[in-house]
Each structure stands twice: as C-alpha cells, then as structure tokens.
C-alpha cells in the first residue's frame, strides 16, 4: 500500500522554520505541583527548556515564571495556550528577544594567585563589567550580570586561569510593552469576565497580541 512514511511528513520543515529564542512569561498562582504541570507541557513534545526561573511578581501571591526555549512561532503559540489552559495559570505571554529586557547573573570562582599573577583584576572588572564579590587569599569570586554572550565572554577570558567554578542563573525578563498585571488581575477576580479578559490573540489577529 502506501509507502508514505508518516513520521516523515510529521517533521517537514514548516514546523521548524524560523526557530528562535522565545521568552515565555507565565503569571500563576503559587501552588505545589504547578511547576511540574507546566514542565511536562514541554517534555511531552520533547522540547528542551533552555532556562527556567520562578519568582514573585509585582503582585503579592502571584508567581511569575520565565521560560526560555528555542522554537518557531507556531509551536510557541500552541505551547502558550496549553500553559494558559492549566487551571492555576492566569496569563501567558511570549516574546522574542527584541521585545524584552533581560538579564542573567553569572558567578566565577578563580584562584587568587593565578589571577593576581597573570591578569590584572582591574582589566577584568572594566572589560567585562564584572564585580568582585569575594576576595580571599585562596580564591576570588566575580559576578557578571548581562546577556548570555557577556557572561560567556568572561568564561572564555578566565579559561586559561583555572576557572574553579562557574554558575549562571536563569534568565529574568521584563516585557517592554507591559503595563504590569495589576489591572488584569482585577478583571480575573471579577465575577463576570470583562472584554479585557476576552482578549485573545487568535481573536485579535493583530500584532498587539502578546504585548499587553
């Protein structure tokens, strides 16, 4: 019969066109188990989470997740809807890098001897915007806040000098075109959903979609 391999046309290029970094922002109740509920939406589709941060939001009692993935627009849109569908999730936004302000924090532990002998601390501090968090006889810890390329650059610079430990935090991001969640929350708490609540990107069809 058919020689058509179904797997083959499942992975045609359309799904993978235009993969880029998206930052998904989730406003949710602070509840045990919700992180798992959100995480499995990605793992179910075999999508790797590049970075995940959970933190309080501008509103007391409401949590904010920042999730970074590499995917195409269509996939991210579907993921966002699946996340928003979870009972304890209030709202989901997704943005490309030009729509957000973001930072990551990295810490570097190096041998003080090495660093004192071979490079000038001052140059590091200036060139990479690093700050010295701890300086001890045996080791020194630097911190850098910035984009991935910036924190990576210092890893490269320190590699020749015995980088003892390195760690980088998840991304935290602020949406440029956002008025915050205070007004939205009033809508959510209202008994009868207002027009604002009905706002939904597939209905709007506009570019205003994920930019509150």
């Amino acid at each position, binding site marked *: *019969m058919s020689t058509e391999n179904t797997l083959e046309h499942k992975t045609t290029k359309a799904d993978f066109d235009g993969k880029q970094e998206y930052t998904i922002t989730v406003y949710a109740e602070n509840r045990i188990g919700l992180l798992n509920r959100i995480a499995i939406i990605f793992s179910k589709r075999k999508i790797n989470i590049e970075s995940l941060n959970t933190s309080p939001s501008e509103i007391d009692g409401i949590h904010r997740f920042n999730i970074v993935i590499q995917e195409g627009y269509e996939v991210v849109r579907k993921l966002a809807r699946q996340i928003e569908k979870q009972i304890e999730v209030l709202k989901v936004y997704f943005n490309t890098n030009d729509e957000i302000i973001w930072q990551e924090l990295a810490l570097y532990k190096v041998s003080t001897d090495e660093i004192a002998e071979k490079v000038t601390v001052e140059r590091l501090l200036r060139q990479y915007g690093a700050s010295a968090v701890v300086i001890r006889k045996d080791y020194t810890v630097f911190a850098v806040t910035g984009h991935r390329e910036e924190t990576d650059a210092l890893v490269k610079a320190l590699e020749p000098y015995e980088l003892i430990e390195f760690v980088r935090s998840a991304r935290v991001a602020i949406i440029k075109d956002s008025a915050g969640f205070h007004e939205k929350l009033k809508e959510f708490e209202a008994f009868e959903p207002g027009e604002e609540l009905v706002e939904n990107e597939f209905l709007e069809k506009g570019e205003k979609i994920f930019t509150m």
Partner: protein
Amino acid sequence: METAQETIQQTEAKAETSKTFKGTGSQVLLNGLIEEGVTTIFGYPGGAIMPIYDALYDYADKLEHILVRHEQGGIHAAQGFARASGEVGIVFATSGPGATNLVTGLADAQIDSTPLVCITGQVFAHLLGTDAFQETDVINITTPVTKWNYQVTDAKEIQEVLAKAFYIAKSGRPGPVLIDITKNAQLQLEEFPEYVKCNHIRSYRPKPKIRIEYIEQAAELINSAKKPFILFGQGVILGKAEQEFKAFIEKTGIPAAWTIMGESAIPTSHPLNVGMLGMHGNYGPNVLTNEADVIIAIGMRFDDRVTGRLDKYAKQARVVHLDIDPAEIDKNVKAEVGVWGDCKETLPLLTNLVNENKHEDWLAKFKEYNQQEIDQVITPELYPTGDEMTMGEVLRNINEICGGDAVIVTDVGQHQMVACRYANFNNTRSNITSGGLGTMGFGLPAAIGAKYGAPDKTVIAIIGDGGFQMTPQELGTIMQFGAAVKILILNNRFLGMVRQWQQLFHDKRYSFVNITSPDFVALAKSYYIEASKVDERANLRQALETMINHEGSYLLEVMVGRENNVFPMVPQGMSVSEIRLK
C-alpha cells in the same frame, strides 16, 4: 429586655439553621458529595481509604456504592455514567495500586473531555516520601492526565477542594479531576462550616464572554459560501446544545457530518446528517471535505483520525471554528474565524445572523457519493449473501429491534467502527465509546456505568472478543449489583483491526493477532448471567430479540466472519479524499 431576649432567640435560631458540622474529614467529604448531587459511586476499598469507607457505611441510604472488580473498571464505569447522564462520574480508590489502576481511565476521560471526580486515599501525611506501604506519587503520576488534581493533607481543606473539583470537572471543557486525601485528613475531627459550591476561580476561565464581531465574521463567511460543510463533535453534546445546533443547521440547510464523539447529537435520520467523518467514516463527508468552500467546525478538535494527512486536508476551504477551548482553535487546522465560546451561547447568535438556505445541489453531491457507498460497501455489509455473518448485519438487526432508542456502548476495534457507522440513534448521549484514547476494555465497565446513568434505557455493550478479555472481571459487578446490561460479543477470533492493518499494510503477516477465547457463554453463566451463542444467520434475529427483551443482564456471543474488513478506509498518511471503498 424584651428586645435582648429576641436577639438571643434569633441568634440561637441562626445557629441551628447554619449548617456547621462536627465530624471527620471522611464524613464531610461524603456530605459534600451529597451537596453536589451525587447518588452513585463506583469504587474499591483498601487500606489508605478505609476511613472514607467506614463513613460510607452510614450513608447507604443516600449514596449508592457499586463495588467494581478492578479500579480500571470503576473509572470506566464512572465515565459511562457521566457520558450517559451528563453528570459528574465519581470514583473511589485506595492509594498505590488502587490509584495507578485509574490512570488509563483518567487518560481516556482527559482526551474525551469526560467530567469525573476521583477520590484516592493516600498514606498518612507524615509518611509521605518514605516509600510507605502502598504509597505512590499519585499527584505526579496523574498530572498529565487530569484537568486538575490536588493532594489534601488537612481535613479543613476538603470542602473547598471538593467544591473546586466539581466546578472544574464540569465547567468549560469538562475533564477528570483527582483528589488525593491522606489518611490522617480522612480521620481528622473538626468543626466544619457549611458547604459552599464553587462558581469562580480567579485563574480559571471556563468560558469567555462572547465577542459578537467574530460571530458576525463567521456569519458573513457562512452566508457567502456555495459549498459549506459542518463538522461537529462532542462539544455539541457536552454543551447541551443539541437544540441550538439543530436550529442552526436547519436554518442554513448545511450538510453536517460527525466525529464519533459527536454522534447522536442529532438523530441519524435527520436529512442534514450526512454521516461520519474520518478514517472509517462515510465516503461523501471525507471526499467532499476537500471540495467544501467553507468548513464550520463545531466542538471538534480535528483529530488525526478525522483529518488524515493534514497538509492535504481541506486546503481549499475557509474555516470557521467554534470551540470552548481556545487551545483547540488553530491547533491542527488554521481557522479564518475562531469563535471562542460555549456553543450553547454562540450557536443561537450565529443562527440569528445567517441566511436561510437549502444548498440542494451541494446536498445532492453527498447523496451521490452515499449511493456509491451503499452499493459498494453498505449493502454487502448489512445484507450479506455469503454464509458468514457480518458485524453490520448484527447492527442492522439491533436497529430494527430497538428502533434507534438504545444506548450503544462500544469497546475499541472493528466492531466499534461498524457500530458507529451503522447504529441508528434517535437520542443524544446514546453513543458511548472510547474515542480519543482507543481503550480496549472500556466497553463492559462503561456499559455498567451507562446503565446507572440512563436506567430507563436499553444499554447494549458491543465488544470484540479481544477487548472483552481485557476487563471480563466486571461480570462480577453485574452479578452482584444487577445492572441490566446487554453484552454482545462480536467474535471473529482475531484482533480484527490490527489484523486488517496487517493484511492491508504488512503483507498479511498476521503477527500475534490470532486470539483464542474462553467459552464466553459458560463464563457468563458462572457469574449467573444468562447467555447464549449464535453461529448461523438463521438464529441471529431471534437471539438478539431474546437478549434485548430479557429482563436482566444477558450475554450473547455472535460468531462473525473471520477476515472481514471495515471499509471505507482512509489509510494512515493519506488524504481524506484518497478514501478507499475496498
């Protein structure tokens, strides 16, 4: 003095009427179930749920508990109950294996949007995470297959959580909810406030306020259409919008085809009902999907079994999609107009704005294709001339005897497709089948539940010889509680659907589909259930009549042709327009 006395009296009267309750977490749980209108529970006791069962002992006059023979049977029964009645199905199970045995049913209910509230017992809170006896991480195991779940460790949470569970299970797009209650919370003695039903959760929007501009856009598109085609799913039934749907199609005169989950939302005999969509659906609806200029999808989700190859599916059509779940719109098929909302509300608005029409030429095309299908597939299936009996002729006889008023519950496989294709339905909620998950073993327990959900209806469970052997233990439930289910086993001595695929796509390499069966008649009789077997056509009609007219439960085994195939068929990976008649 007098006024003070009055005030005291008033306060006392108030205290009496306010329904505070002193008791255990178990009792307050059962009180909550009664408040929510529950009458029937399917369950199985065990160590970690014993306090709830102990409390249940005193509630026998208000809550009927059906002791199933396996927790999977319990949850499928609750699904059958929910599907037949439109109410929430209730399941009790203990921790560990009791809870894990629910997983198949939860997945089935999740994908088929069936409202359930499952209560599982859990080990004492102080033992959580210690690998205690019968401890399992039920919440995490069931997270992907529940609409919502919650672990209760303190009895004071029970009322609020139960109220939320019912609200979530039945509102919006319905689904299964699981509450895991630790044993200490079941035993905990407290003074509880009055039970308050839930009707709002701030982070959850079951349905939106309808935006009229999208209704207008949809109406405009529909009014401009020359060859419009309606595809409807279970959303019409779940939304209890059968009348609104009927009014919409009758005004517009648009032919309407169903997914198997949507079947019975309108009567089979309705002139605009053009039949079944998908892999084993009718010829016209599949072929004409790729000719329609406007497709109106209502409460359906474009499952791959409906669409076939997606990149060759309805590419010429402009699509209007009505759904209560915004995540379904644009998921598989792009909609030009997405109407997000409850179809009970959106359909009447749409009906107001659409023009009356007849679409006679377009309807005639469906009739032409239907005639081809009748000649080449349906007549040979319903009126076979060979010696072997066909599944289709069994269904034709059932139609003739029951006149379309029976509730038909099916298992999964060839018999399921034949039943969906050929069974006649006059009433909604009459076709109960495992659609999305395709769970073999669903049929028998679901039929038991359906009988409790629709006690006045004849309930016929149509099951294959393979599927029956997955959950035959529920014959014990029928024996003990007397659900008058008619069990019809269509025995072809094969796992027929897999065999059909092996014949068509794997060069007839019949790999492990040759299944043998016990003596089903003797098996039923060992459970004190009347039974008989038919292996020739001459006895078929009489045997079916005996089964259907029998007062209690009855099992009838019908030997059908061994290597019959279900046609038409859209082979996997092919377009709906490449549907094969043989």
